[in-house]
């Protein structure tokens, strides 16, 4: 129990990457066409954080894992039907808007307030996990803002690995420029870790874990508090799909020698 941790994972839900996205204007600002009916998944990098958190909790008996997620209740329920089968966690849902256009500062304020009021959370043992960037806004600021609001000044972003030591300290590998990792040693919790891909594969679906999770997820969804997000002076002047379409030359009748020669010339050209 020496290294028992309280791990809170912040994870949003995003449109399935295979869906075609089309921006529209709504009464509350920009949004996506048919946003509420697009199939959704747990944000990919936040999902990495969840799997890493579960692995860490499993290695350190006495640890506890919460998943805090802000989104429309109906969409959260849909996504949880799959996610709940992966690893064991306690869901803390917040009923709020979906998508990448709401202000990150408002999102962070709601998340921080929710985490601070989690029953049984020991903030001295807190590891705050999440994705380093979302697949919606992709700003990489929400988790950092939550950490700052909770008074945590040991923060790491683009994390691919954490190695916990017996004394409670841990080594963190963060992505930096040039395909390298910065290696840091942190004295211990509390800390914020914004995860990149990590090293773990996606866990296989486990129906038993799913059933155990759903026993607490459904009541939690029923009681989810509603959150309204302020714009904080943020306004959108335009939101559009990129229009650039290239005229592609499809070459079917060249030999490997000819293609290689053409490519060599192209590579050498300024």
């Amino acid at each position, binding site marked *: 129990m020496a290294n028992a941790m309280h791990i809170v994972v912040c994870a949003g839900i995003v*449109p399935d*990457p295979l869906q075609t*996205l089309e921006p529209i204007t709504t009464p509350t600002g*920009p949004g996506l066409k048919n946003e509420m009916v697009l199939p959704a998944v747990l944000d990919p990098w936040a999902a990495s954080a969840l799997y890493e958190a579960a692995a860490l909790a499993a290695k350190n008996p006495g640890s506890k894992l919460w998943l805090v997620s802000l989104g429309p209740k109906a969409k959260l329920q849909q996504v949880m039907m799959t996610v709940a089968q992966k690893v064991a966690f306690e869901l803390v849902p917040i009923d709020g808007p979906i998508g*990448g256009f709401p202000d*990150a*500062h408002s999102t962070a304020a709601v998340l921080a307030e929710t985490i601070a009021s989690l029953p049984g959370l020991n903030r001295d043992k807190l590891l705050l996990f999440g994705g380093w960037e979302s*697949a*919606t806004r*992709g*700003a*990489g*600021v929400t988790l*950092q*803002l939550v950490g700052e*609001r909770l008074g945590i*000044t040991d923060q*790491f*972003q*683009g994390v*691919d690995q954490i190695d916990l030591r017996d004394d409670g300290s841990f*080594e963190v*590998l963060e*992505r*930096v*420029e040039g*395909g*390298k*990792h*910065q*290696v*840091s040693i*942190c004295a*211990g919790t509390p800390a914020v870790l914004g995860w990149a*891909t990590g090293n773990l*594969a996606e866990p296989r679906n486990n129906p038993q874990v799913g059933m155990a999770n759903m026993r607490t997820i459904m009541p939690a969804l029923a009681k989810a508090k509603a959150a309204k997000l302020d714009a*904080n*002076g*943020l*306004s*959108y*002047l*335009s*939101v559009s799909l*990129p229009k650039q379409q*290239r005229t*592609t*030359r*499809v*070459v*079917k009748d060249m030999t*490997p020698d000819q*293609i*290689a*020669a053409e*490519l*060599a010339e*192209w*590579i*050498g050209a300024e």
Partner: protein
Amino acid sequence: MESILVLTHADETGSALTKASLEAVTAGIDLATRLSAPLTIGIIAADTAASASSLPSSGARLLAVSGEAFAQARYATDADAAEAIQRAASTTIILAPGSSRFTRIMAGVAHRLGGFVDTHITALGGTETVEASRWFYRQRIEAVLSRSARPWFLLLDASTHAAFAGESGAAQVENISVELPALRTTVSGFRAPTQGAQTIRPDAKLLFVAGAGWTKKQPDGQVHVAEAGELILGFLHATNASLGSSKSLVDQGGEGNSVLPFLTHLNQIGQTGATPRHAKGLSTCCHGEEPHVVGWRFIGSRRAISLDPNCGWTRGKADVVYVADAFPVMAKLNALLEAAKT
């Protein structure tokens, strides 16, 4: 009236500003000129005198936080330094490079100062106010946004501005002292991927993208992973290109299969990977949206080698698609490139 601060930091040598920092300086000068706003440049470095030597001709007021504690990137020290500089500068707009060092801290700093932050800014427009362009949904939707609240922090994506190149000289720098709390994090250094040679080169002119087709069965019914690895590394050696990969190819490595051992998730481009900026891109054996649309958003000239003449993702996205087997083409190409070197 707006006032502008550009936050910068030193590179790994500690004695020069990073290229991304100098790009932010250019953006700051442009914006200050356009808005007729006063410009301040803040520097975080172990040795700010050396770092500031490239800035006298910018005409900006120079503020700095220096010392050994600021030689390395760390949330606690960097956030305190950036906060102190902005408190001294007290500007309405803060520009900074979107480096790993500053993306780690700038939202926290904005919160401490009662401000707001937007990141991954690719362009700054507007005549009397500031309009910032950025992408949403992983480079699928582009938006132009503005904020009425101040201070407003804007992190600029790399390679969106030219690096400032003024005359070097002795700079007058106002040093700001920062009282640091007890530090709980120590930075012990950097670690390159253990699988072999460094293959990610952000400053390269060419991006080479390898897709999962390299590990599929070839016309002889066999897979030729070792040969694929040699061809790819040979091409990188000959061109100094940066190596990107599709998710499917990287995932195969993560599952313990014997495939292209030099590839890691850091090479991945697309929805859950990087969207790098290079003048040219050559994709090989890729058959999906990820490499051709999302991962290629900021690639200038694009060519692809693919066996699928009807690949919908290359049509309209690549300039040229060669319908061919990448193995013989790359072997011939490597030979030509090596011959040209000698």
